[in-house]
């Protein structure tokens, strides 16, 4: 690794400057940087926390109070003495002028707290709702913090990528989110691991919303819908009020319970997520033709299953497959800047 590169040991020890440099590096899209990214991520893979920690995806439609909920979650976790890293993903393209990395505005936190780290990532036009570097950024924070929360905006199919990155997917809605109910019932969306009704300040409204969701879950199950993750998990429905800080402890308990439920299958699940992520990246870059040239989806998936997990990361695998594809095409890879 060049001397200027962030040191994995420092990242693991929670040195914020090193963590920030590591995030800068994984966001770097230049071809020349990719080997450094791969080396860093491989080193971080060996962090004790990388295996024992928990990656939680918090997703839901705009305006349901995800940022405030994340902040409340962070405060509670810190009070329990657990450390937390947050990746706040901007919902849409900077270029279309739709959004801005404003999430921090809703989080009021102690700047001297070494156990809390917040980074926002712009999606810059990525389809699928997650930023290019999100998977790598999660790996960086997972090496340093007990819990990593990835906060994204979306509902239905747009947030599907979060499943590849998070161990536990929490879907946040507010009372009266009728479209979510319909999506669930119609089986358009997969069932999240935890459902949260936020802004439940009105007890009666909240109770009804929780009951509606439980009903929708039953309908969805009856119609044969599957969970984002399976394995006999019963999706709990919780009510929270991030501003009133109620229901936060119950949410933490549910998150922990899901983590315990995953224990045996976690490694497999994470590898599967990375396989999907790598293939997604590759097919976004080279399309159908790329996939079929290299033997089709099945073959690629098998190769990915085999190679990911050690020093190979979704990004480096995607890069290798790209080169192979371009070589097959008979052209040498042009140096992309």
């Amino acid at each position, binding site marked *: 690794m060049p001397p200027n590169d962030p040191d994995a040991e420092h990242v693991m020890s929670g040195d914020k400057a090193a963590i920030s440099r590591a995030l800068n590096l994984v*966001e770097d899209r230049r071809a020349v940087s990719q080997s450094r990214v791969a080396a860093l991520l491989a080193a971080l893979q060996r962090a004790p926390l990388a295996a024992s920690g928990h990656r939680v995806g918090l997703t839901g439609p705009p305006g349901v109070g995800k940022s405030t909920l994340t902040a409340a979650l962070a405060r509670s976790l810190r009070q329990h003495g657990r450390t937390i890293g947050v990746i706040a993903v901007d919902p849409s393209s900077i270029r279309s*002028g739709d959004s*801005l990395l404003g999430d921090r505005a809703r989080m009021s936190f102690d700047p*001297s707290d070494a156990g809390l780290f917040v980074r926002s990532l712009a999606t810059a036009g990525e389809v699928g709702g997650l930023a290019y570097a999100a998977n790598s950024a999660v790996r960086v924070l997972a090496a340093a913090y007990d819990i990593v929360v990835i906060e994204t905006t979306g509902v239905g199919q747009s947030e599907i990528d979060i499943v590849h990155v998070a161990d536990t997917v929490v879907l946040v809605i507010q009372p009266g989110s009728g479209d979510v109910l319909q999506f669930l019932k119609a089986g358009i969306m997969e069932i999240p691991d935890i459902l949260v009704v936020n802004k439940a300040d009105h007890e009666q409204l909240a109770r009804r919303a929780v009951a509606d969701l439980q009903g929708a879950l039953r309908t969805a199950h009856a119609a044969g819908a599957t969970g984002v993750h399976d394995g006999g998990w019963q999706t709990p429905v919780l009510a929270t009020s991030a501003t009133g800080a109620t229901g936060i402890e119950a949410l933490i308990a549910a998150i922990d319970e899901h983590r315990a439920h995953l224990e045996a299958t976690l490694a497999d699940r994470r590898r599967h997520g990375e396989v999907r992520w790598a293939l997604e990246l590759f097919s976004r870059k080279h399309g159908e033709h790329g996939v079929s040239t290299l033997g089709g989806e099945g073959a690629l998936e098998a190769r990915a299953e085999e190679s990911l997990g050690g020093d190979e990361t979704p990004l480096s695998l995607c890069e290798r497959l790209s080169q192979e594809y371009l070589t097959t095409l008979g052209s040498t890879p042009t140096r992309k800047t």
Partner: protein
Amino acid sequence: MAEDGRRQRDKPWIMRTYAGHSTAAASNELYRTNLAKGQTGLSVAFDLPTQTGYDADDPAARGEVGKVGVPVSHIGHMRALFEGLPLDQMNTSMTINATAVWLLSLYVAVAEEHGADPQVLRGTTQNDIIKEYLSRGTYIFPPAASMRLTTDLITYTVENVPKWNPINICSYHLQEAGATPTQELAYALVTAIGVLDAVKATGRIPESEFGKVVGRMSFFVNAGIRFIEEMCKMRAFVELWDRVTRDRYGVTDPKQRRFRYGIQVNSLGLTEQQPENNIIRIVLEMLAVTLSKDARARAIQLPAWNEALGLPRPWDQQWSLRAQQILAYETDLLEYADLFQGSEVVEAQTQQLVDSAWEEVEEVLKRGGAVAAVESGYIKQRLVESNAERLRAIENGEQIVVGVNKYVEGAPSPLIENLDEAILTVDAEVDAQQREELGRWKRDRDPAKVEAALEELRRVARSNENTMLASIAAAHAGVTTGEWANALREVWGEYRAPTGVSGATVKTPAAGTSAETIKRLRRRMDELEARMGRRPKLLVGKPGLDGHSNGAEQIAIKARDVGFDVVYEGIRVSPEQIVASALEEGVHLIGLSILSGSHLELVPDVVSRLRAAGLGDVPIVAGGIIPEADAEQLRREGIAAVYTPKDFELDNIMSDLIDLVDRQHAAE
């Protein structure tokens, strides 16, 4: 006509000057001088720590003590502020919101000490928290708790201080935040409706007495340079308020339905270039709220000609007061009935505003009312958009501003020959003096009494009882502003309002030079990103207690528009937080916005903390009301560029920012 053949003159409006700085004693002296000059009411400007519930010794108050107003931390300060001014004869307006219950409690406590009957006290507490979330930024607590304080004050005064105006619903700051006349009307009205509904919901006022509450509602309005339309806006206000009080609250007494308002004319349109022109703008804007008798202001305070340069001196404020006196006493304005009754032109314009405003009122009510539309960011977003549109129109010359984008050549103004002396500077010692004085105050009082008063306040805050009585008792016990606010923070927590920036959409012209410029800037950004490997990231920070966020917001959305990744965290972010965010977010550039005059304390503080965090290389730019001598000093201390209100061309600023990132990258 009167018997001697002269026309009967109407009584003039109350004339005030928004004033206060440094210490209570210094401000008291200023008030006496102003009254001697013929001012007929007082308007107290509090400093930002007092407005946001901090004592001078709190780290958050750093650099802000005595800057934009007077610090009032305890009953001793309130005594000194009104030393020799008989409270039972004064008409005192206090620009105070989140801590309004507390400052009124101190005022009532001092009146009690003087033996004055609260029944005779006259004056106004601004007490409008909604517009603080939207524009002015001195809120503390979440909306529900804030509305509870608002209603506590109203229900207390209606019974105990019946001549007091417990609230000034402010459309003023909405215009300062960019509101169009329609928006100003609509959002002020939904705020008033939100407050009255909340008062009703307390159940403390019997149905038969509710008209009294409605009758005490007053407004604080703005008037801009399009003074005919502004006058029509005032007439529209009268009509709409009559409608709301009659139809929604069933008030039958026309006196209780009257639209009563005070005014400060527009500061947003005052220019740093050729600042002497501002006095003309101020006079024209005053006409908007005086010409029409049926919609004339009850009280007027005018800004000073040099407000875009820094804090006005007593002479500058006197000049504005003289403008009021000449209009009221020299001209024949007050001798006539309403001049515009029956004017088809005025009536048509008024009706157009009535209709468009009512439509927007209904839109907000449909969204759950003012509080809900604050929490969801709906209103804030509309305001940010309007302001962006206003700036765009000035930048491309559609809206003419003399001396700024047209007729810019001219002889140098003798008024600003010596620029540094053309504004007021607050003694840098004030901060330390106040801290020391506060220490003495805390040593000399009875700690058991203080603790008991605070405990009672916390208990009341948790209950449904009125916080006023516990606050007045706390005032007598020697409790400080910071202690009062902290006790309530413990119970209710603090709030951070939506910035309105994330959802705001900017109208980008499809063609023309401005479209070309943006295209060029975006191309440069793409090229820079390709070289750097990631998109340039800008942190926009507002350190200190100043809540005027227009500048920061407009820079944030413009920067996003040309392609920066922008992190904007809202107002009142400490230097420590700014440095933490810069570190965690991995930013390439930092922009700081400060309008309270505390730039010489706050900017170097951020710089030294960045260096300590190993981020000394990240370029910083600063913006605000920053006098040239201060700008010079900041540049010497390493600030890459300083922007002031005269830098209205955002495209040029963006080009500078891209240069800075580029140069820094090349140096690495």
